């Protein structure tokens, strides 16, 4: 069986630094190929090379055994090689339908808006989402944008579909829809490749696994040949134990209390308490309002209700007031709201905490030291320190964002998708770090779409549904089943989106 698309001894350098050292790789029709590796190992670079978006510095790309005839992404697409990039590739000012059909609009002289809208709606339907084809991309949440990317890729006539961390920002429900589509395409004979840091997903989907470390292939396996532990070990190069750190008991002191907290149009009458030293998880489906709640909390969105911080009622109208009150928020939208992609690492690192680096003049040496610390503490892998943040690998961008948030030394930290796109090894470090913060007496709210993460990390889990609190689970009751049932609407397995009105304000499921 000859490969549809393959790499032959491919090398790639950025400036003086080589990041791929002679990679061989083959994608076969009707097969799902997983590419795994630590952050910065070179996965995205490989995918860009396969898709024509980057040229190899040495070696070649083979399509059907012949040197690939394309010189650019669009040419590759015309040849049936489609890439879903790790970073979004959508025009913010255009509608969902316009983005899905960008470059291949339907219609003659006059665009056939209706056909494009209908076909887009059908694709989205297939993915089981409620996104409107007429919505502007800028109005969509991060996971919704990912779903649009997937819909866009599905709409093309793919022989090869390459997906760079397609599930990193998706919740349980959308991930299911994605898997269905992958199965369907595999059955139709498409050659698929994806990368992911969710190793259970890799085990579930992949027919073939390639493990990359520091730009070289270090292991290959077929379905069933490699356990999740084996994958982790191969990626990191050493054994990983104790994935989640042990939970410690939170103190009884309440540091934060919300009553009747609402964010117009998204969050309704939320009441919650957060204790010193506690890790509070928030779970829910896309659109359940978790992000809006967090953004309301730190003053990024208009809100109503009362917020009591260490016994004092305060108002927070903007993130600066939040920062002054010791409250920090780490956004899920790393590219648009988290990092200045064209700026250097230290400019990004110190932006929120610049006041610490000098009253008037910025102490650049202190900044450099802070970067050293951050690189060490968060294991940021970067070819050089002079790189622009946007040129870091996706996972390393996430680490930089974490480091940036922590630099403000907050007492209460709201983290939206803390390990989005982060490799297993580093995840473990981050979990340990979060625990350490809690042990120091800080309080952390973790919003995560990865159920295992919420379950493994949180002392208590709040579940949101349609902008309201659906319930709370703690201790032994933190189980996947309990959380999913609350997120979907209690006891309604068959009906994922029931009517919102009749629900009680908050349903405690505490033991």
């Amino acid at each position, binding site marked *: 069986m000859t490969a549809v698309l393959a790499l032959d001894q491919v090398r790639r350098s950025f400036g003086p630094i080589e990041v791929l050292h002679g990679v061989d790789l083959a994608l076969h029709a009707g097969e799902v190929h997983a590419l795994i590796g630590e952050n910065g190992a070179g996965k995205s670079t490989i995918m860009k090379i396969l898709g024509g*978006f980057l040229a190899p510095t040495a070696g070649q790309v083979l399509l059907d055994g012949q040197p690939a005839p394309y010189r650019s*992404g*669009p*040419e590759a*697409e*015309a040849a049936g090689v489609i890439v879903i990039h790790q970073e979004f*590739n*959508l*025009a*913010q*000012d*255009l509608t969902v339908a*316009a983005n899905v059909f*960008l*470059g*291949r*609009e339907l219609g003659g*002289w*006059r*665009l056939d*808006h209706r056909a494009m809208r209908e076909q887009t709606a059908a694709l989205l339907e297939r993915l089981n989402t409620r996104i409107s084809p*007429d919505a502007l991309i*800028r*109005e969509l949440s991060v996971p919704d944008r990912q779903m649009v990317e997937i819909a866009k890729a599905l709409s093309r006539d793919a022989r090869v579909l390459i997906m760079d961390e397609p599930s990193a920002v998706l919740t349980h429900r959308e991930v299911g829809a994605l898997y269905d589509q992958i199965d369907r395409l595999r059955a139709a004979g498409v050659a698929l490749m994806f990368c992911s840091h969710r190793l259970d997903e890799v085990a579930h989907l992949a027919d073939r696994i390639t493990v990359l470390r520091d730009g070289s292939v270090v292991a290959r396996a077929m379905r069933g040949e490699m356990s999740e532990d084996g994958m982790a070990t191969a990626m990191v190069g050493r054994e990983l134990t104790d994935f989640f750190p042990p939970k410690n008991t939170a103190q009884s002191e309440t540091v934060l209390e919300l009553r009747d907290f609402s964010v117009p149009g998204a969050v309704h009458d939320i009441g919650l308490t957060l204790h010193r030293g506690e890790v509070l998880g928030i779970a829910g489906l896309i659109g359940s309002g978790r992000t*809006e709640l967090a*953004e309301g909390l730190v003053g*990024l*969105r*208009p809100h109503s209700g009362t917020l009591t911080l260490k016994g004092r009622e305060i108002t927070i109208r*903007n993130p600066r007031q939040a920062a002054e009150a010791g409250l920090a928020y780490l956004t899920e939208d790393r590219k648009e*709201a988290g990092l200045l992609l064209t700026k250097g690492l230290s400019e990004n690192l110190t932006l929120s905490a610049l006041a610490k680096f000098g009253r008037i003049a910025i102490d650049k040496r202190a900044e450099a030291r802070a970067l050293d610390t951050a690189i060490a503490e968060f294991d940021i892998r970067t070819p050089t320190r002079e790189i622009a943040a946007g040129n870091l690998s996706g996972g390393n961008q996430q680490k930089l964002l974490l480091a940036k948030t922590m630099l403000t030394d907050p007492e209460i930290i709201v983290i939206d998708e803390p390990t989005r796109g982060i490799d297993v090894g580093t995840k473990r470090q981050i979990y340990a770090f979060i625990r350490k913060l809690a042990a120091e007496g800080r309080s952390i709210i973790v919003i995560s779409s990865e159920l295992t993460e919420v379950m493994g990390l949180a002392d208590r889990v709040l579940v949101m549904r349609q902008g309201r609190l659906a319930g709370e689970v703690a201790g032994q009751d933190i189980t996947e089943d309990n959380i999913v049932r609350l997120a979907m609407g209690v006891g309604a397995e068959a009906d994922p989106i029931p009517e919102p009105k009749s629900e009680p304000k908050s349903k405690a499921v505490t033991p």
Partner: protein
Amino acid sequence: MKRINFHVLGPLVALVLLILLGWFLNPAFLAPANITNVLARSAFIGLIAVGMTFVITSGGLDLSVGSMAAFLAGITIMAINALAPYTGVNWGTVLLGMGVALFGGLLAGTINGTLITKARIEPFIVTLGTMGIFRSLVTWLADGGTLSLTSDMRTLYRPVYYSGIGWITWPIITFAVVAILGELMMRHTRFGRYVEAIGSNDRVARYSAVNVNRIKLMTYMLLGALVGLAVIIYVPRLGSASGSTGIGWELEAIASVIIGGTALKGGTGRVWGTVVGVLILSLIDNILNLTSLVSPYLNGAIQGVIIVLAVVLQREKRTAGER
């Protein structure tokens, strides 16, 4: 567009308020003669502003249009005067002159567009440069003075500005047709879609197999051609051009586009809004002339205030996390 966005209609509201104000201050304001005057005068800036909408929507800018208009008017007049002795005083000669204006505009736009896309220089700088160049050239061609059509050609060509179908004169018809075509082009053709996509994010457009440079070039060519068209109806009005023709048209055109709701940074174009913007600007002038409320020295101040107010009406409500 299903839901009604108040801010989208902002400029329209401003326009209606202005019309009511004009009518209240002087009933002659709504006389057909005045309406013809105002609409016909709006046509030059209007045509240019429609083209400018595409350029700005794609993320570009063109400061050279005023000087380009002067230059094109100059060469059109020189061409007609030079041809008339051979081709005769007839419509053929006028048509040749029109061809010079259109073709010259297309060429001028191509020069701007090529420098911007091929030589990759900021549009602001390229068109600031060509702005100086075109104006110098026309001053030089006119020897510092005025280039005028010979009086027989003038008489022949004149109706193109002043006549039409009843009170709807040719400039008005041209402007209306171009505005409608422009709106259709922006909304319903690939070209319009690509222009918006490029202005929104040109990397995304490039990745989607859009020929970004060609589309950008085309926006400048379109604008150039529309400047040529504006010149075609400008020349018969006064029959002359000089170094002072079209001074400040670029600012008026850009202002109309932005008042109409197109973002200066590109991505969303609204041709009908531009038309409203053009009308708002010419109405302000007209109303100030029709009333003598304030010292004429203060006209500029009143204009300034109204421009800002017209845009206040279309402020967008803050969305997610934006404040």
